[in-house]
C-alpha cells in the first residue's frame, strides 16, 4: 500500500457516512460540488454546543452565553487566518455564498449604479452570481455584461478586457465553475479591473475547498463562500470584504445585534462585522465551520491539491476511454469536477442507474443554464471529487457508466 492509500484510509475514517451502504453497495460519493460530507470533529463540535453551552451570543452576562460568544468569535478568527484577511472584523457570517453576493449587490453596488452603468461577469457563473446582478441592474437601469468562454470552457481574456470599459462599475466572477470545473484567471481579472479602479467580488463557493486562498495576495475587494462546500455545516457562509468598503456600506438587514443604540428618531449602527449580522446568527453553523477549517488546515492543501489533481487526471483518462462519452469542460486549469454527456442517454437516467450502484453524482443543469445552452446540452452528469475520494471509486464510476451504455444500446 502506498503512502497516499494509507493516508486516505485514515482520512476516510474521519467521515462516518463514507462507510454506509446504498442499495447494499458501498457508497461512492461523487457529488462533492453540491455539498461535501462532514468529518466527525465537525459533527461533535455542533453536538457539543447543544449538549454543553447552547445559549445566545453577544448579549448574555451568564457563563453559557460567554462560552458561546467565545466559540463563535474564535471561528471568525480561524477563518480570518485561513484566508489571510487583515482583520477578523472583515469576516461576516452569512447563510452562504448566495447571501454574500446579494449583500454586496445591495449594500455596495446598488447605491453606486446609475442608468447606463455596467456590471461585468463571466459566462460560467452560477445562477447565484447572475440573478442578484440582474435584479440590481433592472432597478437602476444599469446593464449586465457577460464575458464569453471558448469551447474548452475557459474565459476569453481578450474579450473580458474589451468589455472592461469605463462604464463598468463592478466585476463579479466565479473562481471555479461548479459545472465545468474551470478555474478562472482571477489574479489577472483583479489586476486588470483594479488598473481601472473597478472593485471585484470573487465567488469562491467551489474554490475554497480546493485552492489555498489568500485574500490579501489576491487583492480582491470581496470574496464569498459557503461552509457546507468545505466540510462544514449548511446554512453558514462567509463574506470577506475590505474594511474600507465595509465601513462605508449601508447595512443589508436591520435588526438586533447590528445596532449600537436605537430610538424612534435615530439608530446608530454597530461596528464591523456586527453591522452586517442582524438577528441571532447561525451559532452552531459558525462553530462547525471553524472546526471544519481547522480540519482542512490539518489535512493541508499540499495533500489536497496533489491528491485531487491526481483524481481529476485519472477520471479524465478513465472516462475518455468510454465510447460515446463526451466530457464537457476541458479547461487547462481545472478543479476536480468532471461533467459529461453520453450519446442517446439522458443524464437523469444516468444518475438513477449510477445511484443503484451506490454512486452518487449530480445530474441536471447545475444552476448554470447559460453554460448548458453554450454547449448545446440540456443537462450533464457531474462527478466531483473531494480529498477523501479514491481511484477505486473512479473505477466503479467508469464500470457503472459502461453498464448504463450497455442497457441503453
Amino acid at each position, binding site marked *: 500500500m502506498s503512502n497516499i492509500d494509507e493516508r486516505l484510509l485514515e482520512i476516510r475514517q474521519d467521515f462516518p457516512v463514507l462507510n454506509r451502504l446504498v442499495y447494499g453497495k458501498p457508497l461512492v460519493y461523487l457529488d462533492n460540488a453540491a455539498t461535501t460530507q462532514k468529518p466527525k470533529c465537525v459533527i461533535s463540535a455542533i453536538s457539543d454546543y447543544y449538549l454543553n453551552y447552547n445559549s445566545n451570543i453577544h448579549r448574555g452576562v451568564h457563563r453559557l452565553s460567554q462560552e458561546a460568544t467565545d466559540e463563535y468569535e474564535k471561528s471568525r478568527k480561524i477563518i480570518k487566518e485561513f484566508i489571510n484577511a487583515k482583520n477578523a472584523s472583515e469576516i461576516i457570517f452569512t447563510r452562504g455564498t448566495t447571501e454574500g453576493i446579494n449583500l454586496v449587490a445591495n449594500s455596495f453596488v446598488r447605491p453606486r449604479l446609475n442608468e447606463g452603468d455596467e456590471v461585468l461577469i463571466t459566462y460560467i457563473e452560477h445562477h447565484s452570481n447572475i440573478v442578484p446582478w440582474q435584479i440590481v441592474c433592472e432597478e437602476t437601469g444599469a446593464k449586465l455584461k457577460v464575458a464569453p468562454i471558448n469551447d474548452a470552457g475557459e474565459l476569453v481574456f481578450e474579450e473580458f478586457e474589451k468589455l472592461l470599459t469605463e462604464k463598468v462599475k463592478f466585476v463579479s466572477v466565479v473562481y471555479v465553475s461548479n459545472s465545468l470545473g474551470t478555474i478562472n484567471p482571477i489574479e489577472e481579472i483583479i489586476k486588470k479591473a483594479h488598473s481601472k479602479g473597478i472593485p471585484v467580488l470573487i465567488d469562491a463557493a467551489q474554490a475554497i475547498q480546493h485552492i489555498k486562498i489568500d485574500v490579501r495576495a489576491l487583492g480582491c475587494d470581496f470574496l464569498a463562500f459557503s461552509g457546507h462546500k468545505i466540510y462544514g455545516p449548511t446554512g453558514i457562509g462567509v463574506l470577506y470584504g475590505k474594511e474600507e468598503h465595509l465601513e462605508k456600506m449601508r447595512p443589508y438587514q436591520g435588526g438586533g445585534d447590528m445596532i449600537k443604540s436605537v430610538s424612534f428618531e435615530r439608530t446608530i449602527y454597530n461596528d464591523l462585522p456586527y453591522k452586517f449580522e442582524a438577528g441571532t446568527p447561525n451559532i452552531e453553523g459558525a462553530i462547525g465551520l471553524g472546526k471544519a477549517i481547522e480540519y482542512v488546515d490539518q489535512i493541508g492543501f499540499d495533500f489536497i491539491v496533489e491528491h485531487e489533481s491526481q483524481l481529476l487526471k485519472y477520471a479524465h483518462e478513465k472516462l475518455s476511454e468510454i465510447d460515446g462519452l463526451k466530457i464537457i469542460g476541458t479547461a487547462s486549469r481545472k478543479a476536480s469536477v468532471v461533467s459529461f454527456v453520453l450519446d442517446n442517454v439522458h443524464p*437523469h437516467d444516468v444518475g438513477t442507474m449510477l445511484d443503484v450502484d451506490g454512486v452518487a453524482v449530480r445530474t441536471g*443543469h447545475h444552476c448554470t443554464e447559460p453554460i448548458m445552452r453554450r454547449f448545446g446540452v440540456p443537462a450533464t452528469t457531474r462527478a466531483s471529487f473531494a480529498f477523501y475520494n479514491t481511484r477505486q471509486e473512479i473505477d466503479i464510476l467508469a464500470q457503472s457508466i459502461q453498464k448504463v451504455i450497455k442497457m441503453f444500446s
Partner: protein
Amino acid sequence: MEELKELYQQVILDHNKNPRNFGELPTCNRHAEGHNPLCGDQIEVFILVDEDTGKIEDVRFKGAGCAISKASASIMTTLLKGKTIEEAKELFEQFHKVVTSDPSSNPDIINLGKLAVFCGVREFPARVKCASLAWHTMLNALDNHTTTKVSTEQL
C-alpha cells in the same frame, strides 16, 4: 418487486428507443406545452377530439427529455386513443395514484394494465416528476381549447 423493476426497465427502454405517436399533429384541436425547469425537460402534447362524440381520435407528442419522461408520454398516447375526455381524466387519476402511492404497498397489477409499468417509478421519488410531465400536459390540453404552458413547479 424485482420482476416489476425488470418490467419497468424493458418497457421504458423500448418506448424510449421507439416512442409511439411521436411528432406533431397539425389537425389537433387541443394542445399544451409542458416544462420541467429543474431538469429542462420539454414536451408538447397534441390532441384531436371529435367534438360530436367527445372521444379522442388522435394524440401525438414531441419533446426532449429523459427515458422516463419520453416513455411515459409514449405509453400515455397509446392509452388515450378512443377514450372520452372523462375517461382520459380518470386515467390520469389512476396514473397519479400509481406514481405517488407508497412503494411498499402492493399494486393491483392486473387491474392497472399498462399503467403497472409506472409502479417502478415509485421506487425513485426524484423521478416522479419526469413521469408526470406528459400527463399533466395532457390534462392541461384537455382543459383548455387554446395553447397553454404547464410547469412541473406549479403542480
